[in-house]
C-alpha cells in the first residue's frame, strides 16, 4: 500500500470518521485517500478552503464527539497554529498529520508551535508498518489525554510502498463515550455543555473559574502528560558504541542500515531513534550516551532536535551535529544526503572525531 493511503486506512481503522484538509505537497495524497476511504466507512472528508478552516472543522467534529483529524505539511500547520493551541486549551482530542518536507518542523512539533503553554504529543514513525501502529496509538492518546496528538510523517513515508497490515476496524463499542462532547441534547436542561479554550464551565455553574485559572491549569496538564506518557525510542548497537547517532524518522532508517554495515566492519557505532518526539526520550538518550565518547545528531535541518539531545545529557557527553538541511531542487523534502555512501562517510568522520576528543 502506498504510504498516504496506509496512514488514512490506519486512521479509519482506529475509528477516525472525520478529516478536513487542504492540498499541499506532500500531504495532498493523504487528503485524497481520506476523501476516497472515509465515505466508505460512513465518515466525512471535507476539502476546506484553507488550512485555517480545515483545523476549524476538525475542531467542530471533535467537539461533537467524532474521532477527527486534520493534516498538512509544516507550512500548512503553521497556518493552523492558533487553532491548535486553543484546541489544546479546550482539551479536544484530535490527531494532526504533518507530512513534512524534510525535518525542519521539529521545533514546531515539540515546542507547541504557537502561543501559550501547550504541547502536542508527537509521534515519528520511520516505516509504514510503524506508522500504522503509531496512527492507531495517536487516536488513543488523544482520547486519553484530551490533547491533540501530532503524527509526523514525511515525503518518503507519504510516497513509499510497503506491505502493511492495517488490522481490523475498531468496533464502535470500544471507542470511549465522551461525556463532554456536544450534540445539542443538554441544551435547555439547565446543564448545557460548554467546550471552550477559555472557561471550563458556564458562569452560573458552581464549578466556574476565570480564564486566568484556565491558563494556569495548563501547567499541571503538561506536567501530567510529561510524567505519565512513556516516551518511546528504538536502539541499535548502543550497548558497546563509542559513537551514538541520534536521528528520527526516515533518516534514522537509512542510518540504521548504514550502521549495520559499518558494525560488520567492526566500527562501534550505535543509534538511538526517538519515536515520541514529545515527550522526548531523554532518559533513554542519556543512558545510551553513558558509555559512548559522544553523540552525533543527524537531522535534515539546521539544528533543532540537537537541543533536546543536549538537554538530555546536560554536558556529560559531547554532542555535535552531522546532518543539515538537504533538499533536491523542488524543496519538497527529497534529500540527496540520504545516500548510503554519503552517510557512511559522515559516520566514519564522526567516529574519528569522537575518538580524538
Amino acid at each position, binding site marked *: 500500500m502506498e504510504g498516504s493511503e496506509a496512514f488514512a486506512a490506519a486512521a479509519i481503522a482506529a475509528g477516525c*470518521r*472525520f478529516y*478536513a484538509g487542504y492540498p499541499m505537497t506532500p500531504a495532498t495524497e493523504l487528503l485524497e485517500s481520506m476523501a476516497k476511504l472515509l465515505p466508505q466507512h460512513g465518515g*466525512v472528508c*471535507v476539502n*476546506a*478552503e*484553507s488550512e*485555517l*478552516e*480545515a*483545523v*476549524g*472543522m*476538525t*475542531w*467542530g*467534529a*471533535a*467537539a*461533537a*464527539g*467524532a474521532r*477527527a483529524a486534520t493534516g498538512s505539511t509544516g507550512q500548512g500547520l503553521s497556518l493552523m497554529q*492558533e*487553532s491548535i493551541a*486553543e484546541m489544546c486549551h*479546550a482539551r479536544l482530542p484530535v490527531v494532526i498529520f504533518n507530512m513534512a518536507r524534510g525535518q525542519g518542523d521539529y521545533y514546531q512539533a515539540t515546542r507547541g508551535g504557537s502561543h501559550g503553554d501547550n504541547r502536542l504529543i508527537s509521534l515519528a514513525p520511520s516505516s509504514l508498518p510503524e506508522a500504522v501502529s503509531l496512527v492507531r496509538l495517536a487516536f488513543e492518546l488523544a482520547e486519553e489525554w484530551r490533547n491533540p496528538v501530532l503524527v509526523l510523517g514525511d515525503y518518503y513515508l507519504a510516497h513509499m510502498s510497503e506491505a502493511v497490515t492495517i488490522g481490523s476496524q475498531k468496533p464502535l463499542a470500544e471507542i470511549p463515550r465522551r461525556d463532554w462532547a*456536544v*450534540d*445539542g*441534547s*443538554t*441544551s*435547555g*436542561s*439547565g*446543564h*448545557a*455543555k*460548554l*467546550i*471552550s*479554550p*477559555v*472557561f471550563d*464551565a*458556564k*458562569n*452560573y455553574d458552581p464549578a*466556574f473559574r476565570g480564564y486566568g485559572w484556565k491558563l494556569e491549569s495548563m501547567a499541571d496538564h503538561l506536567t501530567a502528560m510529561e510524567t505519565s506518557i512513556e516516551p518511546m525510542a528504538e536502539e541499535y548497537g548502543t550497548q558497546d558504541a563509542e559513537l551514538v547517532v541520534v536521528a528520527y524518522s526516515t533518516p534514522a532508517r537509512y542510518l540504521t542500515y548504514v550502521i549495520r554495515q559499518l558494525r560488520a566492519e567492526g566500527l562501534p557505532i550505535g543509534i538511538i531513534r526517538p519515536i515520541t518526539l514529545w515527550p522526548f526520550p531523554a532518559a533513554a538518550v542519556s543512558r545510551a550516551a553513558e558509555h559512548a565518547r559522544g553523540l552525533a545528531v543527524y537531522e535534515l535541518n539546521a539544528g533543532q532536535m540537537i537541543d533536546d539531545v543536549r538537554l538530555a545529557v546536560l554536558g556529560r557527553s559531547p554532542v555535535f551535529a552531522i546532518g543539515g538541511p538537504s533538499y533536491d531542487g523542488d524543496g519538497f523534502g527529497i534529500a540527496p544526503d540520504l545516500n548510503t555512501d554519503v552517510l557512511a562517510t559522515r559516520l566514519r568522520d564522526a567516529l574519528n572525531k569522537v575518538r580524538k576528543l
Partner: protein
Amino acid sequence: MTEIEVVPTGTQPAQPGHIVADFMPDLIKTGTHQLCAGCGEPIAMRTLLEAVSEVGYRSNAVAIFGIGCYTVFSGGIDVEVVQALHGRAPSVATGIKRVRPQTLVLTVQGDGDMANEGLQEVLHTAARGESVTCVMLNNGVFGETGGHMTATTVIGQRTKNTLDGRDAAQHGYPISVANMIAPLPGVAYVARCAVNNAVAIDRARRSFKRALQLQSEGAGFTFLEILTMCPTGWFVDTNQGPSYLDETIAKTHIPGVLKDGPD
C-alpha cells in the same frame, strides 16, 4: 382622592392577571452583563433564543460563538456552546453539523469577527451550502476592543480610528455581508434585520425562525444579519441609538429579506 403618580412595580401586581413577558427567556440563565447601556446585542440574543425555543429546538441546539462583546452570553445561556476563535465559527459549525446532522447548529458572531477576520469562512460555508445558520450582529465597530472600524463601518461613521468619519479615499468602502452571501449557490435564506424598535425585533425573530426552519429541512445555508445599537461605539446617547441606526447604519446595510428558499 389621592392622585397617584407612580404605580408600584417592586413586586407582582395585586390585580389578578398573568405574565405576558417574563424578565428573561428560560434559555438565558445569566441576565446580568457588563455590556453598555443601550446595547442592542442582548436584545438580539433574547430574540434568537426565544426563536430557538419557539421552533422546538431548545433541547437540540448547539451555538458556536465568535469573539466580541456578545461572547459574554456564551457562558450564560442554557444552550450547548462551542467557543471558537475570532472569525472561525463557521468552520467549527461545519464540523459539528457534518457529524451531527440532526442537531440545530447556529453561529453568533459580530461584524468585526465575521466580516473582517472571518469573511472567507462564512463565504465558503455559504457556497458549500452547509446546513447551518450563521448570525452576524452588526454594529459597525469592533466593540470589545473599544470601538474601531470594521469592514461594515459605513462612510461617514465616526469610530475610534476614523474620528472624522470613515472616508472612502483613506479607509475604503464598507462590505454588506448579507448582500455578498445572498447570490451564492448553496444559500437558502438571507435576511438583514434590526433590533432598534419593537417591530424590527419581531421581524428579526420571524426571520430567524424561518432560517431555522429551513435548516431543519436541510435546505442549505441560512444567514441572518442583525443590526444592533452601539451608542458607545457611535458616540451617541443611549436613547439616540435606535435613530442613529436607522439614519446612518441602515442606509448602507439595508434591512430586508434578500433570499427566501433554496434555488
